[in-house]
């Protein structure tokens, strides 16, 4: 547990000692801010439904950019060897890096809390869906971070790690929107696989154990994959 915290703190600080954090956070805020507020006054509704419906797509591009360096850079520079030969287990390493990425995602979301604050100044806002939305965003971010960490440990090239990460996350985001093309027998199964649907149901303010379990299992699978790849490298 202590080792996980040590690694997580180091990785988290790394984000802020390099320009990555500031670039990624500003891009995220500009993109979400623009898409959300450009239509906000047209709908004339004091809620954040639009913001949360955008999140899965934006996350599937932004989060792989956050996670891409976690393993790839270390493998490329060779510091991976130093990390692995210190008295830490593979589980500590995978979890530490995952936690750092998750906290960074949380940091990225914190400035957007100003949106509901401003909205509440100009209209009555229903807090349930907003709180649910943030909880959902946290879980969704966690799932995508785990997948991003996994894609990062596959390769020493950060660009490949990013593209693989986007491919996996984007597939999960849109898979329940292309059910139309699927054979009938697997429609309900594929529909359950989509991250977007589970996220939308949490962000309506309904916290269903099925959705939570879905996100937790994606996180588990991503980290298990990371662990297995690390064992394979060894």
């Amino acid at each position: 547990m202590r080792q996980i915290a040590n690694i997580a703190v180091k990785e988290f600080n790394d984000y802020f000692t390099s320009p990555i954090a500031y670039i990624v956070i500003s891009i995220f805020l500009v993109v979400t801010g623009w898409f959300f507020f450009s239509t906000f006054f047209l709908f004339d509704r004091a809620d954040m439904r639009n913001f949360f419906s955008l999140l899965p797509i934006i996350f599937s591009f932004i989060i792989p950019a956050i996670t891409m360096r976690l393993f790839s850079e270390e493998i490329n520079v060779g510091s991976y060897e130093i990390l692995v030969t210190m008295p830490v287990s593979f589980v500590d390493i995978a979890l530490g890096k995952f936690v750092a990425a998750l906290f960074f995602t949380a940091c990225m979301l914190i400035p957007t809390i100003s949106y509901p604050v401003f909205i509440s100044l100009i209209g009555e806002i229903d807090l349930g869906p907003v709180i649910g939305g943030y909880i959902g965003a946290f879980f969704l971010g966690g799932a995508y971070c785990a997948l991003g960490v996994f894609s990062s440990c596959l390769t020493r090239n950060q660009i490949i790690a990013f593209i693989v990460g986007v491919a996996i996350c984007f597939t999960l985001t849109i898979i329940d929107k292309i059910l139309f093309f699927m054979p009938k027998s697997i429609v309900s199964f594929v529909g359950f696989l989509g991250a977007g649907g589970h996220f939308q149901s949490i962000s309506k303010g309904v916290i269903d154990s099925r959705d939570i379990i879905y996100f937790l299992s994606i996180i588990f699978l991503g980290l298990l994959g990371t662990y297995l790849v690390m064992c394979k490298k060894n």
Partner: protein
Amino acid sequence: MIQVKNLSKYYNDFCAVDKISLNIKKGEILGLLGPNGAGKTTTLRMLTGFLKPSSGNINIKNLSIFNDSLRIKKLIGYLPESAPLYHNMLVFDYLEYVAKIKGVKKEKRFQRFKRLSKLCGLSQIMHLSINELSKGLKQRVGLAHAMMTDPEILILDEPTSGLDPNQIIEIRDIITRIGKEKTIIISTHILSEAEATCNRIVIINKGKIVADDTSQNLKQKAQKSSCINLSLYNAEQDKAYNVLKEINNSLEIIKKESKEKDIISFEIKSPGDIDIRKDIYLKIKETNWIIAEFIREPQTLEKIFQELTRES
């Protein structure tokens, strides 16, 4: 201290390390020598637990590398080849991170840093970012990293490669200084280095051990079979060759191209440890030749190394 038994490592079909067995005692400074690609780094990586052996076993202080790798990692300080550190960190931050991960207590940390910075000469660079450091300085930070917890075993992979002569001497000094109390394994392909720092030398080639002895024994072996360089004025090569051959038929005499006019040169190797200098001198005294050069070259470790690792 360290028992290595029938250790092998395959990368797909390529056999990098082939059934190596070694027994390393406490307090030894062992030099692992070999040409590039001989399997030195692979062997060290298996010792540190970075790679899993394909077959064979490693026991360190009666702990098996397969079951107790975490506890073994605590016993070992490791400096990988060319010290791949985190480039975006400050030296101090990096050392603090390492201290945290290696479990150095907070109260003791500062004291430890002071000692390490004195030992490795880091006091001037603590505040610098690692990517600003020269290769030699990085190597020193890497050494400090390896020695953070004062481990019983130090494994250093080519600690002096790519350094300038002054830095090499500095690093060597550090190694000899700490080698008094620790078990150290160094890999290198520079013989003089192994000769200067190690008390036991293991030469490996193509994944196999081809020599394993103390550096003194190896040197003694080397001196026994010597080689004489002889240059003569006033002589014809063929005639001189026959005269020299008369001394002892088993001599190995090689005619050499001479760079100077009127001078002919030979390289004479005597089998075993017969001293033939006297005989050669007496033979030449009988003729009207004049000796221009008469040098006995003790066979250096370099020569032994070359012979042992030559392509067969």
